[in-house]
């Protein structure tokens, strides 16, 4: 599940539940839809309510990063803790993690 907080060209997408191969498809469709419609300057993925993420989540983030970059925007990740932060670090995407909120 996904909740979108829209502040003009800055969008926060709060992701809910587990991000695995099974769930990735739905997240992907929903996020691509938001990106295509809003062409955000900044898309923040809020991981606060994500209980689990495996490498399918890394693919999801990388794919959305490309989609946002294609419309001239950037992507950031907030509230990634524990194993989810570790997963992001392993994939070399640490630079996307924000410690302070950007909005």
């Amino acid at each position, binding site marked *: 599940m996904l909740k979108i907080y829209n502040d003009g060209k800055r969008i926060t997408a709060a992701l809910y539940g*587990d991000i*695995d*191969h*099974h769930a*990735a498809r739905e997240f*992907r469709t929903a996020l691509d839809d938001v990106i295509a419609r809003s062409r955000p300057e900044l898309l923040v993925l809020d991981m606060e309510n994500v209980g*689990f993420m*495996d*490498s*399918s989540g*890394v*693919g*999801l983030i*990388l*794919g959305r990063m490309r989609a946002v970059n294609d419309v001239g925007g950037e992507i950031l990740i907030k509230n990634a803790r*524990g*194993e989810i932060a*570790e*997963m992001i670090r*392993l*994939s070399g995407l640490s630079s996307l993690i924000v410690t302070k909120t950007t909005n």
Partner: protein
Amino acid sequence: MKKILINECVLRFPAISRNESLSRSAAAAFVLQLDPTVEETAAIKTAVSEAVTNAIVHGYRNTKGTVEMIMRLYEGNLVQIIIKDKGCGIPDVKAAMEPEFSTAPPEEERSGLGFTVMESFMDKVRVRSAEGKGTAVVLEKTLIGK
């Protein structure tokens, strides 16, 4: 040193994506007897999810098949989980285990990190595979518990 088996549980399920969460929940339930830390449970769940997803998306390439998961507890809090498929197999295991190696087409958005993740979250990862016959991934971790 010979391993002394204390407990064992075998799970067999069709290779469909909804069973990814089932498999990792089963693994979490199995290790509960060791009173694991949150981190240990998360590590086991992540590694299992990687291996089971691989069996479904690569082994069977989303065709019908069965995944078998054998969970074992040995003396000394050693957890061993084996994930087996009878799918296409891996021609070159060493190459497949390299970070960022993936045979998935770009639209599937796989990043070739599954084995790297398994190795980082578990103590030991062994892979047996034969082309056309299938793959077995052996995951091992000694839990310290709380």
